[in-house]
């Protein structure tokens, strides 16, 4: 039984690798979202989340920069100010990360994590900075295919859902806070929903984690990707202790297809 499961996991991982060519996004894409708190249908808008892609040229290669910023709306700033920045520099065709930066600035809390991936040796050089000039350097051994959180998020858009059976799962390994976290995405079904950019046919996915509290549970967090070539995230629903957290798209520009 264990062998069969291992084989299935291997096949899923293998097929993901072969199909993993990015046809969904390119440089110049900008997606704007609103993160809200929903309690019994009453929405409270908390922050704006921007997801942008751009081209970064080095003397050796042209990479794709994936950037996510989260900023609380001004009405929240005097209570709890969030100014987070996540960025990843990836291979444009297979979304393999080379460098990841996470700068978390939430209220009085500050943390910066930088990962430099060495994909040939499967290691990551990690630098963690906190308040009061605290610096921690680490060298982490990772599994092949491990990605940071931003490239994993964009990688969801690379997967081929057209030929995926309902209920099929894809497994990911995400490097988060210097630890590898196993993530699982389940393709649930196709759904048509109303979004900020119109009525869209979407792929409904359940996202979860087998470990830690990054994403709790397996079927309490959902995301909807448009069922077209762009596969943009248009809606997200996340379970929180009281009520639900929601991510709604406001606008999308610079789409590849």
């Amino acid at each position, binding site marked *: 039984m264990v062998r069969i499961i291992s084989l299935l996991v291997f096949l899923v991982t293998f097929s993901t690798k072969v*199909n993993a060519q990015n046809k969904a996004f390119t440089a110049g894409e900008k997606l704007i979202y609103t993160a809200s708190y929903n309690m019994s249908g009453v929405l409270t808008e908390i922050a704006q989340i921007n997801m942008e892609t751009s081209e970064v040229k080095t003397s050796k290669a042209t990479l794709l920069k994936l*950037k996510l910023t989260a900023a609380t709306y001004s009405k929240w700033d005097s209570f709890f100010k969030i100014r987070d920045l996540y960025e990843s520099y990836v*291979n444009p065709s297979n979304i393999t990360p080379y460098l990841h930066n996470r700068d978390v600035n939430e209220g009085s809390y500050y943390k910066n994590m930088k990962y430099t991936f060495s994909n040939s040796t499967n290691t990551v050089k990690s630098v963690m900075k906190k308040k009061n000039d605290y610096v921690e350097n680490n060298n982490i051994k990772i599994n092949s295919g491990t990605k940071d959180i931003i490239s994993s998020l964009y990688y969801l858009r690379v997967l081929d859902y057209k030929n995926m059976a309902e209920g099929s799962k894809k497994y990911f390994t995400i490097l988060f806070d210097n630890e590898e976290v196993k993530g699982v995405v389940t393709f649930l079904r196709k759904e048509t929903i109303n979004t900020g950019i119109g009525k869209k046919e979407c792929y409904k996915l359940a996202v979860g984690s087998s470990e830690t509290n990054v994403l709790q549970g397996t079927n309490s967090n959902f995301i909807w990707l448009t069922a077209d070539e762009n596969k943009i995230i248009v809606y997200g629903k996340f379970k929180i202790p009281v009520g639900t957290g929601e991510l709604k798209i406001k606008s999308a520009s610079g789409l590849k297809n």
Partner: protein
Amino acid sequence: MKKLFTILALIASFIAILFSVLPISNLAIFPGLAALIFGGFAFYLSKKTGEVKKILHFAFLLTIMALLLTSYKAFFTKTQVENIEVLEAKEIQFEEEAIEELEELDIEEIEIEAEEINDIQVETIENAPAEIKSKNITVDELENLDLGN
């Protein structure tokens, strides 16, 4: 019973007014409705005994103020992001630092891309013979073929 409903209405109206001035003003609708329900019961019971206390009027007043403020904020306040200059400056700084680090990366790592693309191309070519087999070629088509000399 009348006293209990009056106290509950008063507490709910205080919570409603507190929520209405906070960024979570939309949620003031819940204690606001609770205050109206409790206040309504208290008012009904008070009417029965013929004495409506002023504190109950005060609870209603607070609730109405809270609901009006909540409605105003919901319809007329624009949600927008401000003061992101620091974040924007950081983005530029991080990108400059990142490019410096990326320059030091081993170029071999980027060549992985070519290998993966080749894998995908091989898969497409493998399908080709099957398609050729299924093609119907007529004798006329073969005779008209241009074979050079």
